[in-house]
């Protein structure tokens, strides 16, 4: 479908597919990114067609490098795309600050996919503020068709103003699907050349640099003014509603769909209008002034922070003479919640209170009985590691070693499936969890607090992809500064959480072609850390190693726990062991272990049968890792190797 030549034909496309198609219609040549929900499918879709569409597609080591790789494409005259989740923009922002000053050549589009409500994140960060901070244009598609069309236009806009354009998506567009009419594919393969011999001040032919800063900054702001002129006439900004509405809703992105729904549901389309903005920074002032002057009440619907609200209020204040007095409703006055994602109900509630239209979503009595029935009859689905997941085994050993050591040691974590060790799934082992690689940086700091009396053993955990992304500099820091800490690298051979994208430790690229891989163990050794390895499925050896390294080694050291993810294509559906519980040996509740197997280890494949009062293996769910056989103090869990 992505390379379909059926122009004008309509397909049901996921937002991320629509974006990828838009990039192909624009003739993108280079695409780079770092995996992160809800953005990953854009690069994945492009990678799948890379050989046929003459693209270079890369999963980069982190977001900053992906932006640099994409920029190189642009400097060489190619159209380039860079994709990341919201917090990736923070990582890329240092380069971005300089890139926007030097400007670009081939059209370059940066697409962050934000996750309001943190559905698949540990933050609900806003990327839109970066557009204002970096002084670059910001586009926000309001539906699936626009996701495709705006992506295509973003490349043209970028070339028109010779600078990066940011297009921001959100989970409810990226991971939602709707009808999209395809446009024409651009299949020309342009040739790349980097010109640098022109005048130092000539952005098109000279070296690509940020100096002299005042000169370049002036140029950059002139580009933004040019964008405003284009935005004033952009079809992506639309007004729907009566000429002089009682209430004007100003909105963007998925919130446009919620707002439209709210007016339809309340039958308020004759009383209220919607100004749907597709170009949200810089705001087109003439368009805004016209609409602000036509209404006395303005409701601003957006997620997550009051970005539009703040900017619109500044514009209204500057033009108060022509616009007149306005009553604003939004996040600042509490009409719209200031955290979490939006939905139709929030907008319905806001509009019904402003226009005094009664609405009942769910009768109170129904809601109450629904909550009680659901609470009592739908047991909660707590998140857990998959059956056969190496992390469960790794945390088992780390946790045991810290307990045996008895000095109140703790683990600093970061981002990946293994973050779930803040939950019972990982025995609550993780005690700090923030951003990519930050567990090791924080541990590096903790490891220097001995002189203040901190004598607790300090451990950090970091996944293999995360190690390359941001863990490496933290380890360098710990080694160089002589921090007393242990970094445990949970190497499951892939970026498992986001769907097995390759990273520098994997010998293949985004499209599956062979590439040289970087060996984590050699990297750690060459940094100067004492480095050990273990197989976490061997829990007795792993526990012994963790304890020994904590008690008998000093300085920054590394223990690599290497075992592939249970869902990896190589392992999925293949059992190493047949596992069973010998019911003659299992003592059940009389054992004295307090159900270590099912109450603590909590693998979905190991079931507590309350009628027999004994544990039993669920053959269908069990992945055959065999680890639980070593957990049982009575030796009731048996494993036998599967003959291949």
């Amino acid at each position, binding site marked *: 479908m992505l390379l379909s030549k059926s122009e004008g034909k309509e397909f049901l496309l996921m937002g991320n597919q629509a974006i990828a198609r838009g990039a192909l219609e624009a003739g993108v040549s280079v695409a780079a990114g770092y995996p992160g929900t809800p953005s990953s499918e854009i690069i994945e879709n492009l990678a799948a067609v890379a050989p046929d569409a003459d693209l270079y597609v890369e999963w980069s080591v982190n977001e900053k490098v992906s932006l640099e790789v994409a920029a190189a494409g642009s400097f060489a005259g190619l159209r380039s795309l860079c994709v990341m989740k919201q917090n990736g923009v923070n990582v890329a922002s240092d380069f971005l600050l300089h890139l926007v000053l030097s400007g670009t050549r081939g059209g370059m589009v940066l697409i962050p996919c934000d996750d309001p409500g943190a559905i698949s994140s540990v933050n609900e960060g806003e990327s839109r503020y970066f557009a204002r901070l970096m002084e670059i244009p910001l586009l926000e598609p309001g539906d699936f068709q626009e996701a495709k069309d705006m992506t295509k236009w973003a490349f043209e806009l970028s070339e028109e103003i010779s600078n990066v354009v940011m297009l921001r998506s959100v989970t409810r567009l990226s*991971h939602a699907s709707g009808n999209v009419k395809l446009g024409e594919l651009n299949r020309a393969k342009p040739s790349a050349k980097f010109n640098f011999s022109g005048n130092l001040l000539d952005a098109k032919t000279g070296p690509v640099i940020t100096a002299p800063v005042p000169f370049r900054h002036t140029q950059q702001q002139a580009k933004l003014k040019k964008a405003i002129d284009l935005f004033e006439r952009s079809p992506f900004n639309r007004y729907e509603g009566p000429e002089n509405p009682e209430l004007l809703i100003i909105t963007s992105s998925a919130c446009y*769909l919620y707002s439209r729904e709210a007016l339809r549901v309340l039958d308020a389309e004759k009383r209220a209008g919607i100004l749907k903005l597709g170009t949200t920074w810089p705001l087109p002032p003439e368009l805004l002034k016209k609409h602000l002057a036509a209404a006395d009440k303005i409701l601003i619907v957006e997620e997550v922070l009051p970005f539009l609200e703040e900017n619109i209020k500044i514009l209204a204040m500057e033009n108060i003479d022509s616009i007149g007095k306005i009553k604003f409703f939004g996040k600042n006055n509490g009409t719209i919640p200031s955290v979490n994602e939006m*939905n139709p109900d929030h907008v319905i509630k806001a509009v019904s209170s402003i226009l005094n239209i009664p609405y009942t979503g769910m009768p109170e009595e*129904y809601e109450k009985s*629904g909550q009680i029935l*659901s609470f009592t*009859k739908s047991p909660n*689905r707590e998140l857990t*590691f998959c059956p056969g997941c190496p992390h469960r085994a790794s945390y088992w050993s780390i946790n045991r070693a810290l307990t045996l050591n008895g000095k109140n040691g703790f683990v600093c974590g970061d981002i990946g*499936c293994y973050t779930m060790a803040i939950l019972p799934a990982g025995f609550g082992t993780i005690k700090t969890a923030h951003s990519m690689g930050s567990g090791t940086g924080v541990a590096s700091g903790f490891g220097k607090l001995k002189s203040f009396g901190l004598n607790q053993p300090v451990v950090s955990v970091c996944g293999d992809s995360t190690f390359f992304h941001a863990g490496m500099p933290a380890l360098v820091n710990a080694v160089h500064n002589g921090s007393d800490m242990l970094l445990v690298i949970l190497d499951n051979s892939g970026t498992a959480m986001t769907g097995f994208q390759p990273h520098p430790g994997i010998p293949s690229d985004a499209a599956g072609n062979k590439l040289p891989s970087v060996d984590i163990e050699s990297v750690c050794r060459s940094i100067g850390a004492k480095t050990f390895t273990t197989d976490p499925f061997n829990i007795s050896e792993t526990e012994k190693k963790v304890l020994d390294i904590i008690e008998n080694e000093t300085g920054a050291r590394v223990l690599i726990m290497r075992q592939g993810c249970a869902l990896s294509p190589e392992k999925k559906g293949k059992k190493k062991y047949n596992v069973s519980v010998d019911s003659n040996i299992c003592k059940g509740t009389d054992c004295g272990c307090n159900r270590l197997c099912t109450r603590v280890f909590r693998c979905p494949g190991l079931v507590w049968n309350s009628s027999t009062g004994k544990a039993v293996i669920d053959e269908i769910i069990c992945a055959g890792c065999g680890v639980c056989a070593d957990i049982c103090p009575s030796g009731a869990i048996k494993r036998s190797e599967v003959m291949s």
Partner: protein
Amino acid sequence: MIDPFNIIITGVGGQGNVLAARMLGNTLTKAGYYVTIGETFGASQRGGSVMSHLRVSKESSWSPQIPKGKAHLIIALEPIESLRVLAAYGNRDVKVVSNTRPIYPVGVICGDLAYPSLPDLNTAVAQLCDDARFINATEEAVALGHPILSNVIMVGAAAGLGLLPIDDESFKSVISENVPESKIDINMKAYRKGKEMAVDPVKF
């Protein structure tokens, strides 16, 4: 058909929730409708609930989230998920068609939480909606040769309620685009089986 018609497909990670939503969405798109699907699958691979909202309309796209209490049809690939969805999006008039095969949450597996019996669950569901039908989709899929066919049976069951403007031919053309030719017949068989089962659900 009520416009927009609001469908929720709910289940647990690994059940093929997203695929089932796709099949139904593509069939309706082919029938000339605007379809908007909103998906929540962030925790899908880690034992969490998964939910797809489908909005079907002759006029336009709708938002990817159904307002609270406004579902018209709930397709539950896992039985207790029907109750969870009813509590948030249900109303007396919503139609529920649910698979009977449980997938136990880890709390139940560990013996910390209780999973209701099917009659018990049926009673709870009946307190929230007037038309709920349970069908042995997984069992039937296994009989047809593969448990994965239970999704197709469930989509067939949804079609069998007679609420959706889809016919066997449009479904067949979607299936043909998504499975190898040798598998088309068995998928159509599963789809038709689902249609039959919807009018002859489990009796309590």
